[in-house]
């Protein structure tokens, strides 16, 4: 899959790889694959990373990579109750950063988040993503990335109540404070309450 003269799999190679595997480039399974490879950056794999990944998955060929046991294993990493999920989630941030950057751009975050968090079933995820997309500021910090996941967990488990949300005493990031205000103003909280009660 390398480009001629290069040692890494670039964007083109990636596209071909995805095609061979029968998945869309935006399929979350690619994130899982990158995680296993410990790929440093989104969009390309180094030889080392590729080899590492194949080895850990116990695959010698693409066909094996495509096979369902391997695919299932990869996809299982994306399940929120998987013990490795948090690792993967945290990994995704660094991986999605531009080389030599510390934080990811807003629109990257907004596209990446749902790939990982959709399975959690947070009813207001889209509202949040929209809010982030049209907020000021250029990027999403690592802290916000991680804290949002914690936030969703706590809300879904009922530990955190959006009704009684107090931005001053809690240490949630300002973006989340602002979004909760927004959600309250637009009477969206109800959806969460119902869901949380179902779960809890």
């Amino acid at each position, binding site marked *: 899959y390398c480009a001629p003269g290069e040692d890494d799999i670039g964007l083109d190679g990636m596209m071909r790889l995805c095609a061979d595997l029968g998945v869309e480039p935006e399929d979350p399974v690619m994130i899982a694959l990158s995680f296993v490879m410990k790929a440093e950056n989104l969009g390309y794999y180094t030889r080392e990373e590729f080899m590492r990944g194949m080895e850990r998955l116990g695959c010698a060929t693409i066909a094996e990579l495509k096979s369902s046991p391997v695919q299932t294993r990869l996809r299982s990493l994306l399940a929120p109750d998987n013990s490795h999920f948090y690792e993967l989630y945290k990994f995704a941030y660094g991986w999605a950063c531009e080389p030599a950057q*510390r*934080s990811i751009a807003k629109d990257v975050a907004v596209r990446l988040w749902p790939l990982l968090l959709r399975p959690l079933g947070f009813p207001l995820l889209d509202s949040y993503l929209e809010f982030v997309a049209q907020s000021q500021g250029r990027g999403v910090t690592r802290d916000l990335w991680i804290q949002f996941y*914690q936030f969703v967990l706590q809300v879904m488990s009922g530990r955190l109540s959006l009704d009684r949300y107090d*931005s*001053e005493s809690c*240490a949630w*990031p300002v973006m989340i404070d602002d979004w909760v205000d927004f959600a309250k103003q637009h009477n969206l909280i109800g959806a969460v309450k119902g869901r949380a009660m179902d779960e809890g």
Partner: protein
Amino acid sequence: AKAARRRRRGEGGAAKAKATARRRPSRGAGPAGNQQGFFASRPAGRCAMDAQVIQFDEGWSQIKSAIDQLIEILWTPGKKRTALFTPTQYMEIYTICYKMCTQRSPLNWSQQLYQKHSDTIEQYLRDKVVPVLKEKRDEFLLKEMVLRWRNHEIMDKWMRKFFIYLDRYFVKHNSIPTLHEASLNKFRALVFDEVRTEFVSAIIDQINKEREQEVVDRDLLKRCIAIFGHMGPALCVYKENFEGVFLDNTREFYAAKAQDWINQDTLPAYLIKAEAALHAERERVDNYIEANTKSSLVKVVEDVLLAQHERTLLDKEGCNLRTLLQDDKKEDLSRLFRLFQNVDNGLPPIAAITREHICSLGEEVVARRESAMAAAKTHKEKEALDPQFVQSLLDLHDKSEQLVSEQFQNQSYFQRALKEAFESFVNKDLGKTSSAELISTFCDRILKTGGAKLSEGDTEQYLEKCVRLFTYLSEKDLFSEVYRNQLAKRLLMGRSASDDTERSMIAKLKSRCGAQFTSKMEGMIKDLFTGNDLKKAFKEMARTDPEQLLPSSEGHTLSDAGPSDMIIVDGIEFGVEVLTTGHWPTYKQVDLALPEHMVICTEVYKRFYEAKTQHRCLKWVHSLGSAVVKANFKRNYDLQVTTLQAVALLAFNATNDWLTFDAVVAKINVDPEVAKRILHSLSCAKHKLLLKEPMSKSINRTDKFKVNDNFQSPMRRIRIPMASLDESHNAKRVEEDRSNAIEAAIVRIMKARKTLSHRELIGELFKQLRFPVTPADLKKRVESLLDREYLERDEADRDTYKYLA
């Protein structure tokens, strides 16, 4: 008596020796035996001075007759009470007593005599005195008591004198009460205790009468109270029997009065009455009550009249504390303070109402401004409102300070009330311009030339007052920013009225806020000061080493002639002011395209500066420069303009034609916005040096300009002002400084505490930061520091932060 005794001793020395009681008198009564053999007949009228022994009955009957005499005198009104017995009479009785006490046992009659002393007094009191007393009531009782006590004192005195020998030996050796004590005990038990209750109430009745403005006999009362003192040591009888009753009675009396007064009187009238009552009670004590009671008495009255009713009084309908404050009733307020000063917690409620009062006055000032601003139509009208507003605040402050110092003795509760009140409305949102700015501008007017015309004393006073007002601002850093900008302008444009006043003002700010607050301001003044040395050096170099500044090979001329801070290059006088960046506000960078002859001047200076200093870099701030342009419009004029205007004018030397706006912009290389201001000042203001097409009031990019050949003015030297390029202050900079301050504080706190919860961190920050912030502001700064890895969240508890070294 001693002398007489000595004589008698001489007469019958031997016989006396036998009967002399040099040995102890014996206890127990001697037998009242047959006295015939031992009784010597006594010559009438003369003391028996012989060795004859005295039997009890005989001796006693003599003594008794003297006592009866005494009693008779005391009992008969009108008889004189002094010198009741002649010395001779007295000596007789004394001697009998003496002998009877010194005879050998069983004839030593000390015990019996002692008993008789007691019994006689008792009998007298019980049979005669008490019945009379018990008949009397009220004032009569008091008078009678005083009389009877006086009598008793006399009786006691004589009884003691007669029986004094007993005191010396018998009493001492037997540890029994002295004669005086014994007689006092009798009086107290038999007389005083009998009528005590009525006595006390009679006194209190009199006191109450006096309280109701009736005249009473104060002297009588004084004597009555004195009796208590005599009845027991250290006023214990007084305290037990009188004081408590008296205080309770006082309490009742004034409680009733208080009710009446509250219903009938206004607050000031009530206070006057209360003060009078306190005064009367104090005076009463001074006059006839024991001094010890004063403080308890005053406390009772204060409690009943003042403490119990404070709230009702202060909020009374009609005339209450608020009305007093509003109407400036100085005397009533002073009285109120005086009275409640001594009451526990009496002052805080008064201070609280005072604070509200000042607050409401302040809010009025703010409201007036708002409505005036809304009503004002022209820019000029609006501008005039600013100094008026500050002046109103200063006036209010003067008035409030006067109130606190005169009426409330600068007591700390009231000083705090004043401070809190001012802090509340001085920081109210005034819309576009904050109070901080307005106060600074007010000072600017005082400090610059052509501003307010004040004497030196007045200036000092005004600035002092402004600084006091400044202390109430929560946005002091904003004030500093504005003040700095205005100071810079004054200093650079030479518009500062007095260097000393500037320094004095900075010193005042420094003493309130510390050196860091004023360091930049001081830096600015220092720059100008050291600038003088630099100017001298520049001139010196022009004189001594002109080659270095301007190699003559380049065909220009340089001389050190001209004013002290300038040199002449190619006929142009020019001088430079060097400012240290960091001290001064940041100014708009204008990369003006100077004409060549001006460029040469700047290069000359650059050479000088590089020779004089190392590692420094000069940046020209043309927007601050000024120039004098010699112009010829039919006759010569000297135009005082800014450097920007000068360069613009010189651009028109090239051609007599119309120049478009864009052409001018290109030629002098400034922003269009800046060019607009320049050209406006030259073509649309009072002195139209340039013609503009079209002749509108404002500048548009499509305008054209040409020299106005027909320009004229009666004056030769004309100043052409130009609108300032910079804002009054850089709001963004204030924001930045605040952000930095917050972050520095967070790092400082976290470094010290290592681990801190979010809530605790926010709490600490609120304590430490000196300008207003919201929790959201602080959170943003924390996030920024999290991202830059100064802090991290705790693994276990995401509400806690840890310091990352």
